[in-house]
């Protein structure tokens, strides 16, 4: 198979001249996003713990004797897990960033494992904005981009201010590549 001839300069480029993904112009997510996630996770764990405590102290159904220590242990484990997860989320969410270039989108995340996902706009099949009830309340949106790579490899940027998400979506839809590939 031969390559299209007008792009053959392609091959002549040296490594130094290629656009580089380690020199991206990284944009932070909405400042409220880490706070919302932290609050949400904290409240989910609190609800779990409160339910546990209620079960222990309710007078309606008497618990079997050996159940109490087990529940104690479970609650303790949940509490430890909550602390670990909250600390992780607190630091990891600050490390998330995205970048747009003329021809592709990038999302970088991870605390221990730093990962940069790059999605050429040419390969995008469709775009979705996802907003849960909490996202709507605080004016956030999650951008989802689907390619033929399958559901496992959906490109996602969470925690964008709605206006930004909307304009990125518009940028993708009106992109000349988006209707080609």
């Amino acid at each position: 198979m031969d390559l299209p001839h007008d792009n053959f300069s392609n091959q002549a480029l040296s490594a130094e001249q290629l656009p580089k993904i380690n020199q991206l112009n990284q944009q932070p997510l909405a400042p409220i996003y880490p706070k919302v996630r932290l609050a949400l996770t904290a409240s989910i764990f609190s609800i779990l713990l409160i339910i546990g405590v209620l079960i222990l102290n309710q007078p309606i159904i008497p618990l079997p004797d050996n159940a109490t220590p087990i529940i104690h242990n479970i609650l303790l484990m949940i509490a430890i897990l909550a602390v670990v997860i909250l600390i992780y989320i607190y630091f990891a969410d600050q490390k998330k960033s995205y970048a747009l270039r003329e021809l592709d989108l990038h999302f970088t995340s991870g605390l221990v494992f730093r990962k940069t996902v790059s999605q050429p706009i040419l390969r995008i099949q469709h775009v979705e904005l996802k907003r849960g009830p909490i996202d709507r309340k605080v004016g956030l949106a999650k951008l989802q981009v689907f390619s033929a790579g399958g559901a496992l490899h959906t490109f996602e940027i969470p925690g964008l201010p709605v206006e930004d998400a909307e304009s990125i979506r518009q940028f993708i839809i009106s992109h000349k590549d988006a209707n080609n590939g």
Partner: protein
Amino acid sequence: MSEPLIIKQQTDKWQRISPIAMLYFIVKIILGLLGNIVYLAPAVIFGYKEIIAHPHIWLPVATLVLILIFIGTFLSFYFFQYRLSNGHIEIRSGVFSKKHINLPFTRIQNVKLEQPLYYRPFNYTCMQLDTAGSNKQEAKVVALKLDFAEALKQEILSQHHRQNIYSEDGTDSNDTLETDSEKTNDSINTNETLLNTRSLTDLIIHGLTNNRIWIFLGGLAPFFDDMGNAIANFFKSFGIDIEQFFMFADKSWWQIGLFALTLTFMAMLLLSLFSVAGAILSYYNFTLTKLGDRYIRRSGLLTKHEVTMRLSRLQMIVQQQDWLDIILKRMNVKFEQSNAHGGNYQPGAANNKIIIPSVKAYESQRLIDDVYPENKVHSVIYQGISKRFLLRNIGYFLSPIYIVIAIFLLYHSNFSVLLGATIAYLFISLLIFCRWKRWGYAVDKQFIYIRKGMLGVDYYCFPIYKVQQTQFVQSWFLKRHRLSVIKFVLAAGSQKIPFIDQKIGYHLIDNALFQVESSKRSWM
């Protein structure tokens, strides 16, 4: 072309398919019932005596069930209609829940013909239409005359080419596609060239080599007894006498062990036979032919399958060789297409892949060269991955676990189990070493090649411009040593290259993105 006109005249209005389709529906219903036999079986078994004792009640019930099956079949047939108009195919089906599918020819990615055994005497076939895109819409025309189906297939595929030419006209970057399509249009009436066939021997080999886990267990079988002893002693050392659990009646436990061993052997033999039978069922009379830019696979003992794939749809070539394949000097070659469908609604057809089972090295070379003449899968020099792969997996994961276990066993002075654990540790380390040794990559102007495996060797080769998405991953550990893990996502799945120099990783990704974006070529 004259064929499309004929088709048009015949099918512009809604029409039913041949009554022969009732056979198809009846088989489908019966298979559906058999599929649920797990739930029905207890009822039948417990009710058996009842049924025999009171034939006057159960006979009418059985008759009723039969009648219901027939009515269901007839209704399914009655409500199944299709028509072809303006390059669309529409299918209406369903008795209670109605289904209406409207499919433009241009969106059809794949046309498969499937000929079950009972259609063959009448020369009928099923036509399965696959679409591209994210929503799973599949359509099946249940009974068509074989020659009509062939003509229709030609028309659908040729419409596709025409559409391609028109819609992509004007953009220079697409001229390879156009020439490809034109070539096809020209060659539509020429004969297919035969690329490969598989003999019965090949299929038996394929059946055996693809059942390797059982053969592997078979190799271990002589040691089963010793292992059993060791396990028993292990439990005994904790004060549990496992033998007394197995003291059925007056048989000693080694008799039962022997019995179990024989049973395992029988099971393995049976499974191998099944595997061979399965290979013959699905690949009997295997032919791979080429017509223009289309590859056509035909095979099947009872149900004949035909899968057509355009060259441009191909995402990745895979050559797989497991350790048994290496001994027998055989390999499986796979042409992988987009697997966006999940691809398991049709087990017999092996979804969208074209697999050429158990070919010899020179045949594999010839097949791969036919698809991508410029590839160097077999001649390129593969770069290995960093030795830190060994350090990470053996040093940081496996060894600590082993050391903890070893200390525990030493504390209990349980040396026989310690020996076992040590052997397992060494064996797993050896496997990790093999994995490291195999893992390699290479790049040239058009392709990325990946070699990997453990006991076997697999080669993957894909054109760089087919990449859908890239990922660059680096942990603290990797960053400290300037290493990285990169991943290329293709429509046919993703491929990872771990533990390579971060500079190379960045370059491979930058280059892949550049090739995708600058070539502007479609991935399908």
